[in-house]
């Protein structure tokens, strides 16, 4: 079984600073694998281990941050057998459809892929759409919000929590599945994983140009903050609680 685990590398939100004019300063931001993408890598590894005869290929479409050896090693240490990247400076800012289109071409090049697994959403845009759009482009069975994946020979059976119930669905392969952020607990790589990562194969795919965007980006600004009163009290718990209670009762 050939399983592809997709991930996006994006700037860490807590390192981003808002300037007084509300523009965003990304200079100090560290580029990391998306939080929710770690669930995709973990789900792929766990499934591969269950199947036995299986390979997990990491796939990421991004900018020059992907050329960082430390970053690819980080990805490989988390359970991937190999790594394939598509690098284009338009990709970090790409829309879901543009990204999905590039990933579809990359999946085609990787050939013989049985299953593509993605996370709930990227850490930066969180549109929650790349998996959905990728599946539609490939014309493969596609599901989002998948919590568990059980291999059943030529298909997989998945559980998918919806707002009012849990759907159990048989999915024919090849397929595209986006997993929830609660699907698993991503492993923390040990020293052995980190050392092994350096020896795993990585390839850069050439898949052609990124499609034109379908909207014009006007601005990216810091979110407007609601004005808060910022009253902070320290001191004995009983006094603080009494003061807070008075405030609450007045609401």
């Amino acid at each position, binding site marked *: 079984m050939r399983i592809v685990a997709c991930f996006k590398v994006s700037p860490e*939100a*807590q390192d981003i600073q*808002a300037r007084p004019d509300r523009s*965003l300063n990304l200079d100090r931001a560290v580029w990391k694998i998306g939080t929710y993408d770690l669930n995709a890598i973990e789900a792929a590894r766990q499934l591969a281990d269950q199947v036995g005869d299986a390979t997990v290929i990491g796939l990421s479409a991004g900018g020059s941050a992907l050329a960082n050896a430390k970053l690819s090693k980080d990805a490989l240490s988390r359970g991937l057998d190999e790594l394939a990247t598509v690098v284009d400076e338009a990709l970090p800012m790409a*829309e*879901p*459809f*543009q990204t999905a289109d590039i990933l579809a071409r990359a999946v085609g090049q990787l050939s013989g892929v049985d299953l593509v697994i993605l996370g*709930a959403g990227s*850490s930066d*845009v*969180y*549109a*929650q*759409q790349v*998996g959905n*759009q990728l*599946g*539609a*482009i490939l014309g*493969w*069975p*596609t*599901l*989002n*919000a998948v919590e568990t994946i059980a291999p059943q020979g030529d298909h997989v059976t998945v559980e*998918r*929590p*919806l*707002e*009012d*119930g*849990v*759907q159990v*669905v*048989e999915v*024919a392969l090849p397929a595209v599945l986006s997993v929830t*952020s609660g699907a698993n607990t991503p492993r923390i790589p040990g020293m052995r994983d980190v050392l092994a990562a350096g020896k795993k194969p990585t390839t850069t795919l050439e898949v052609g140009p990124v499609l034109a965007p*379908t*909207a*014009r*980006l*006007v*601005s*990216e*600004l*810091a*979110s407007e903050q*609601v004005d*808060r009163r910022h*009253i902070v*009290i*320290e001191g004995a*718990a*009983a006094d603080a*609680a009494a003061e*807070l209670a008075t*405030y*609450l*009762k007045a609401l």
Partner: protein
Amino acid sequence: MKSIWVIAHDAAVAAELVRGAKGFQTFVGAVSLGGEAVPGADLTLTTPAGAGMIEGYAQPIADLVVEQGARLVLFGSDTQSRLLAGAVASRLRTSARAIAGIEVQGDAVTVTRTIYGGLGVATEELGEAPGVLVVGAGALPETDAAMAPGEARPWDATPSAPGLRVVETRPKHQQVVNLASAKRVVGVGRGFAEEADLDLANQLAAKLGAEIACSRPIAEGVNWLPVERYLGVSGARIRPDLYVAIGISGQIQHMAGVSKAKTIIAINKDKNAPIFAQADYGVVGDLYEVLPALVQAL
């Protein structure tokens, strides 16, 4: 503006989206998947209930949008609607966008999206392709448009979801939580050492008449509360009158879910916790001492 189509499988979501769309003063059509006529819609196309996965309607919806020359196609933000939106968008060779706001002038459409875990907001002008929008709560402008029932007719469309077979749908055991409609919410975080200690927060919630909610680690790390109760960019986003954050540090991703609350109160023992910068009223103290005293004082 050219027409707007609302696609929904839930009557309440359909009505809310149609109501918002009516504000743009144009023809509003609705596809009611397994439902009935949507109040306010100029035309509702209905499909039989229980016809399998609603996601199978992607191709007929894409065809309808093209045939109708629609400017916008609106979806709710639930799981199935999101998947359907993505499948429709790919067929229209555009992106499905999760929007937090929208402005319309003629056929020019500007939308806003949350980025970087709630830290930022991106503003975009849509290109010529029909806009495929996943509409978050409160994203459409409020209107007082008349919601008279319009024409409804059965839609002659055949769903198709090859390779997907629903084996069963199990109802959820716990009660359905609607944090979005709660006026008061008490949120708990990793400041609580043990699951049993959440009782302290429950007591406060009972006194305040508030719903209990939590940060992501409580729902997806230690699993003390169901995922429906976690607040944040990837969880529920609420705008209650009062939000009380207890033992929550206030990471960007969490605050994105609560930053629109009218009043935010924080209780945390770390006076440098980022939550205090976004709170109206903060108590620096040990929740194990503050909460019992507070419950008693209320």
